């Protein structure tokens, strides 16, 4: 019984992780979007400084 519970747990854990990885992979920004993110962080901080 314990074996099956552990196997079930393992399967569930790997499934959840795999789904999480897939979702994260889909949501990942491209390199260009990362550049834009950095530019926008620096730009907004510059504007805050001026204000």
């Amino acid at each position, binding site marked *: 019984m314990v074996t099956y519970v*552990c196997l079930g747990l393992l399967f569930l854990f*790997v499934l959840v992780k795999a789904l999480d990885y897939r979702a994260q992979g*889909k949501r990942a920004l491209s390199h260009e979007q990362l550049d834009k993110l950095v530019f926008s962080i620096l730009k907004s901080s510059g504007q805050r400084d001026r204000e």
Partner: protein
Amino acid sequence: MMKKLPVLLNPYIKTRHPYNKLKICRRCNYFTVLGDTECPACGKSALQGVEQRASATLTKSAWMTRLIVVLIASVGIVLSPSTLHTILISAGGMVLLALLWTMQRRLTPALLRRELEKLFLKEAYSLAAGLANDRETAIKVFHEGDKPLAFEMLREIGALVHTDQLRVEQILLLQSFILRKDMDLMLDPLLMDHFNPDLVEYIGELAKIRRDLIKENAFRYMLLHEAHILKMEHGESILIGVAGAAVRMKRYLLLYPYLIMRYAGRLPKDRFLRLYRMVQASPGAFTVPLYEEVMNVYNEKYKWDEDFQATGKPRG
């Protein structure tokens, strides 16, 4: 007039993506684009690239996940009542671990980018503060008198910080140097939306030594602010130089015929000869007013010039 300095600038090292220039301290999470190993904030040799940091975090989390799989499988093995159950849980654990490992490896590039995004968002304040400190360091270097180093520092910061203030600072420093053809100069990142006489003068300098740097954005800038530029002391000669740079490519003749038309008559002979040859080579490709203007200038100034005779007779 300010005396210009002869300087030697180190070449600008381009990275595939501007954010690749960012480094972060392992100890204090200070961001910088200056320096290779030593953190300007804490002084420790703990600087690492942001990708390295993201990769380290990702590797740690991947190993943690694998460890959890191994732990659950181990508990199953220890508590298994028979050999059959032990084999079952071992095989199942190994298969699932292999599956997880493969998935992690296949998705590594995307997960790395996701990790970078999290890092930038989480450390946004520190990122902005780090780059602001970098700028202050550059200004300090400038006040200490090392202008070339100050320019190189501002140029590094400028890869990520796109503000007019930083552009103006770079242009002012460039204008204090004797610019040479072999220098690693740039123009596009320094272009602004509003009119700036120092930028115009810098473009004028580039028109003399590095015409290849004057591209579409620069032509558009010059056309947009032409009225202001003409009011400058050497405004007209700068515009003539830029029109001369536009003669470099047929594409620019097609895109900016009116810029060239207005200054065709005042172009230096070699630039006009090039323009004349391009127009002669494919007369139908250009607008009629440009063709007519070139022919008018040719008839007025160069009709009997030997260099122009080899080019052939005009159409019509």
